[in-house]
Structure formats: C-alpha cells, structure tokens
C-alpha cells in the first residue's frame, strides 16, 4: 500500500489515493472508494525526468491523468513489475546510436559541402547577370588601385596591350579584358569579375621572361572566364547559410565549428579554382602558340622559394602546392614561340618608369 496523488487531467484538483501492486497492473483507489482505477503495467509511461521524488506516471492510452507516488521503495518495486519502464539501458543504447549516427551524418554532410557545393555554385555563378559581375569587379578594381599610380609608359603599354589581345583572342572570352599595372612593390596579381586584371609592379619585376608574364596573365584570365570570384561568393554565402542552420547561431561551440568549417571549405575550393585556372592558362598559351616552359620555370622558382609543402600547410593554403602546379605544367607540355621580342620585353619591364 502506497500513498499517492491523482490528477484526472480535467481539473486541477488533487485526489489522495492508495496504490497497490496487482498482478497485471496498479490498483488505484481513494480512501472512501469513490475513485477506483486499474492501470495495466503495459500501458504505463514514466513522466518525470529526474530521480527526485515524487515518481510520476501516466497512461499511454489516456495521456492526461497523472499519478504521483513519493515513496522511493515504490519506484524499485515498480521497475520489478514493469521492467520496460526502466529506461536507463535503452537510453544508453539510444544515446550511443545518436552519437554514432551523428558522426556518420556529420561526415556525409561535410563531404557533401566539399564536393556538391562547387557543382551547384558553378551554374549559378554563370547565370549571374553581366552587369552584376561588372559592378562587383569595378568595386574590387577600385579598391586595389586606390591611392596608387597606374603605370602608363606608352611603349610598355602598347606591348602589354598587344600581349593581352593575343591572349584574349586565344581565350575566346566574349567580354574584353582590362589589364592594368599598378606601381606598388607587391609581388602579386589579381583578377576581378568583369574582366579586370591588376598586376603589381613588384610582380612584373619578379618575372624573368615575357613567357612567364604571359602565363600569369593567362592564369588570371582563366579566373575570369570561369567566374571564380562569383562562384566563391555563391559558395561562401551558401556554406554560411547551411552551416548556420545545422550548427545554430546561439552556441559557442557551434559558432567556432562553423567558422573553422567555412575556412577549411573555402581554402579547399579555392585550391580547386586555382588548379582550374592553371589548366585554362596552359590552354590559352597553347592556342596563342606561346611556349609553356615559362610557366614551368615560374612554378619551379616558386617551389624553391617555398620549399616542400608539409601536410599541414597543404590544407591551409589558398593555392595548390607549387610542386603539383609545376608537374601539371610539365605534363601539359605546351610548346610554342616566344611571347614577344626581347626589345618588347625591355619596354614592358619599363612600363612603370616615368
């Protein structure tokens, strides 16, 4: 005999009852026998989420009423009569299942983002209106050239224009390219949507031959032809949105994981874009009948400068390892003539002189 409380789920009244263990269920009746109920063990459901008293029971068939018994001995006996109610073991199994399933799902999810996302981003980027590309590119171009002088030495400019025309014809891209050399000692070159290419004076100075510069320009044209910048924007936007949905925005770990995930995915996709631009560059050089050995020499010098790429660096870099890029250029084996005469090259190198 155990003392308990009964709520019928229709009013907030509390009925004092006495509970007994019968063969197939609980016998519940109140002091003057005006209430008499029988709750089969098979129909019982534990309501409380804690082992603190009182223990609370409900029925599966009629979910509203509640039975509470405070005595801790009752809980022990109840589990003996109705072992299915002891959820601890099944909870551990379910928890482990969720854990393993979660890890598997997470791996699939990351793989999907890695492989499937670029496939979707490409057509979307190609469908973006040209005006959008143009506006975006202009913003980037103006940001890169702000406060610096554009090199306009006439002879060098003419040589450059001729080279760009030759490459552009080979690239067969419908829009025109606008290539500018900017007088900053930065050893880098950038491509922006809409056909803008910015080469810094420091980069021109590092080139040892015109063929190398032609390769670099072709590489940047490759970025523009494939709309890599817009693809990257679409990808980053989609990744941010999807990761926010999955990891949630309100939890410290979620935000950190999401941030790191975005960085790694971004770098990985960026390396794929760079490899694609390299391949397109070699195609352009081939169509323009320019010797591809310049590219090989460029990557070989880069390889020497950077040294062997460690496994860690490999995943943190925006570009593929230099040795891979050199090997790919060697495999392509693009043969051809020089990009320009040595006199023209001298004039081009002096494009930033006043």
């Amino acid at each position, binding site marked *: 005999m155990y003392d308990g409380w009964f709520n019928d*789920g229709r*009013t907030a009244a509390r009925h*004092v009852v006495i509970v007994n263990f019968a063969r197939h269920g609980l016998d519940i009746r109140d002091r003057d026998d005006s209430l008499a109920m029988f709750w089969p063990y098979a129909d019982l459901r534990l309501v409380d989420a*804690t082992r603190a008293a009182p223990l609370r029971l409900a029925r599966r068939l009629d979910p509203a009423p*509640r039975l509470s018994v405070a005595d801790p001995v009752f809980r022990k006996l109840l589990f003996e009569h109705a072992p299915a109610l002891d959820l601890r073991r099944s909870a551990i199994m379910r928890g482990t299942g969720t854990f393993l399933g979660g890890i598997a799902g*997470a791996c699939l999810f990351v793989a999907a983002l890695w492989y499937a996302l670029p496939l979707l981003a490409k057509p979307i980027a190609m469908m973006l209106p040209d005006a959008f590309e143009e506006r975006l590119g202009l913003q980037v171009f103006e940001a890169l050239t702000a406060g610096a002088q554009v090199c306009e030495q006439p002879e060098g400019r003419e040589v450059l224009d001729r080279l760009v025309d030759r490459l552009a014809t080979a690239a067969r891209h419908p829009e025109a390219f606008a290539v500018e050399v900017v007088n900053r000692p930065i050893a880098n070159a950038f491509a922006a949507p809409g056909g803008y290419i910015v080469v810094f004076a420091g980069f021109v100075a590092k080139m040892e031959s015109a063929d190398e510069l032609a390769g670099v320009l072709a590489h940047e044209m490759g970025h523009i032809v494939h709309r890599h910048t817009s693809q990257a924007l679409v990808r980053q936007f989609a990744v941010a949105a999807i990761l926010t949905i999955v990891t*949630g925005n309100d939890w410290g770990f979620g935000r950190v994981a999401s941030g790191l995930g975005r960085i790694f995915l971004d770098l990985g996709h960026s390396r794929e874009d760079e490899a694609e631009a390299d391949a397109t560059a070699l195609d352009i050089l081939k169509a323009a009948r320019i010797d591809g050995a310049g590219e090989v020499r460029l990557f070989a010098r880069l390889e020497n400068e950077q040294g062997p790429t460690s496994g860690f660096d490999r995943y943190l870099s925006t570009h593929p390892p230099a040795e891979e890029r050199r090997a790919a250029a060697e495999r392509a084996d693009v043969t051809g003539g020089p990009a320009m005469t040595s006199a023209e090259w001298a004039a081009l190198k002096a494009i930033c002189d006043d």
Partner: protein
Amino acid sequence: MQTALRAEEILLRPSHETVMRPESHAIDYVGGTRALYGIWVVNLLLSIATLGFYRFWAKTRTRRFVWSCTRVDGEPFEYIGTGKELLLGFLKIVAVLAPLSIALQIGALLIDSEEADRVVTALQSLVVATLVLAGSYAARRYRMSRTLWRGIRFRQSGSPWRYAALMLTGVVLTIATLGLYLPFFQAGLARYDMANLHFGTAPFRFHGSGRMLLKPFLRLWLMVTVLIAAVWAFGHGLFLIDELYESGRATDVVEVGLALLVIPPTIQVVVEFFAYQAAFQRFRAANTSFEGLSFSMLELSGGQLFRLYAGNLLMAILSVGLLSPVVIGRSMRFWTRHLRMVGSTEFASIVQAERGAGAGEGLASFFDVDLG
C-alpha cells in the same frame, strides 16, 4: 523529508482535497548539480557529434529536468515539449527569413547608391529586431503551452506581433523622454505578459502600474544624470589639464582628482541599478495574482540580485560555459527561494483549456517556435 511531512498532513485531511487552507505555499527547486551535469555532458557529446544539430533535443532534455525539479506544494511542473517541435519551429523561421535576407542582400548589391545602402541596412535591422522580439514572445508562449502542473496546461494568449510593437514603441518613447518612460514601459510589458497568462481556463491578473515604480526609478535616473555630469566634467578637466601641461604645472594630482570625480557616481549608479531591478521584481510579484493566490518577493534586495548576476557572469566567462549547470541550479534556487505564494483557491474549478482555444491562435501558431 519534505514529502514525508506532506504525506502526514494529507492523512489528517479529507480525502478529496480540493480546497487548501489559506497558507503559505512552498515553492522549491530540488535539482541537484550532479544530475544536471550528467544531462549536460551527454548534451555536449551529442552536440559535438552532430555538429550542433542535436541542440533542439539538448534544450528539451535540460528543460524537462529543470521543470521536474521545480515544485509547488511538493508537486512538480512538467515539460511536454519535444526536440522535433523545436526543430520544426526553427525550420519555419528559416523558411521565412532565408528568402527575405537573400532578397535584401541582392537588393543591396544591385542598387548602387549610398542612400539605398543605408535604407537597406536600416530596413534589415528593423525586420530582424521585430522578428527577434516577436520570436521571444512566441517562444514563451510555446514554453507555457508545453508546461503542466497537476496535468493542467498553462497558456499564454496575446500576439507576438503586438508584443513586438509594444517593445518597439516603448523603446522609442523611452529614448524620446530621456529614459523617464522606462518604468511605464516595463510595467506595460509585465502587464502584457501576466494578463495573458492562464492556468487551465483561469487567468492570471496583473494590478500594477508604472507609477508604482516611479520613485525607485527616479533615484536611478538621478544618479545616471549625476554620472553623466561627472563624466562631462572629467572630459572637460582632461582638456584643461592639457592646457596646464603646457605651462608645466603639476598635473598628475589633478588627473587622479578627476578620476575620483567619476568613480563614486559610477558605483552609486550600479547600486541604484540593482536596487531598481529588485524593486521591479518585487513590484511584478506583488501585483500578480491568480484566483485566490497572491505572490510576493518581499525579501529581494539589490545586493542579492547583484551577487546572483555578478556570480553567474563571472562563472560564465571564466569557465567558457563549463559551469553552466552550476549557473542554472544557482539561479533556480535563488528565484524559488525568494518567490512566495500565499492564499487558497478552489483547484477543482480550474479546468483544462481546450487545445487551440483562444483568439488568434490560427495564424499566430505558425510561429509556434522557440529560439530561447
């Protein structure tokens, strides 16, 4: 011990216990920190394994525990919400927000002018603020509808959009009146919350008005004004020091003196702030009633509130979230210790409300979401 006492009392009473003696009712929280850590660790592991997707079920598990450990007269509350409901609510919000934010982003990129940029940003902020405010009310409504006591559901009527509008106009009025509207604003919000709360078919009532908060608020407001004046004087003083410096006079002492000008008012503002918060909590409890029951928080002081919040903040920052079960337990014990309920009511007359009853449930239940 508490349940044993209760059982004895029950034996001495008639068996159909529908009327309670006018008396003080016990409100307590019996959740142990260790048990909560058990839940928290499992939540953490599963959340990591699922890259955070488990959070809906984690929240549900925590709530079910905390609700079951909170008791009135020895009878615990019950949380019947599910992780799936939280997930569906979240997806609904995303389904509405995603196209909206994409449209706004594309719009911002296409329209290439500075005014348009500002308009778009302002519009975005307004939309987000409205959704967050409406969402917080919708979240509370969801939690109430999934809370039971003695098997009877709570219910929060009222519209999330109305609540968001109330919030936004309140903020505007508070700024326009240099803060003097704040007690009326807070009283208005408390009234909207409480007057719309029901237990079964019976409503809670709120009797308070902003005027009752005015006196404690004015002390805070005055101290803030003093602080602003002190900061202004400090800034001016620094400026004068620069001029003195050029004539080579001793400036270090003056700098320290100026700093002392600002520190006491700052401390006073903090003291008055917590005193006002305590006054607000007491005001809200004292002016809430349910049938024959009334509430109070008579012994709540600003100092106690400060210790609670400062302690929680310190633990949250220093432990990077590892002490959050401690924070939860601490807060629950604090509030249940200070909240008192007195009176009696005919519980048999409080009937379970029909599901879906109440005005405006149709469209509003679309946002039956919970982000909090």
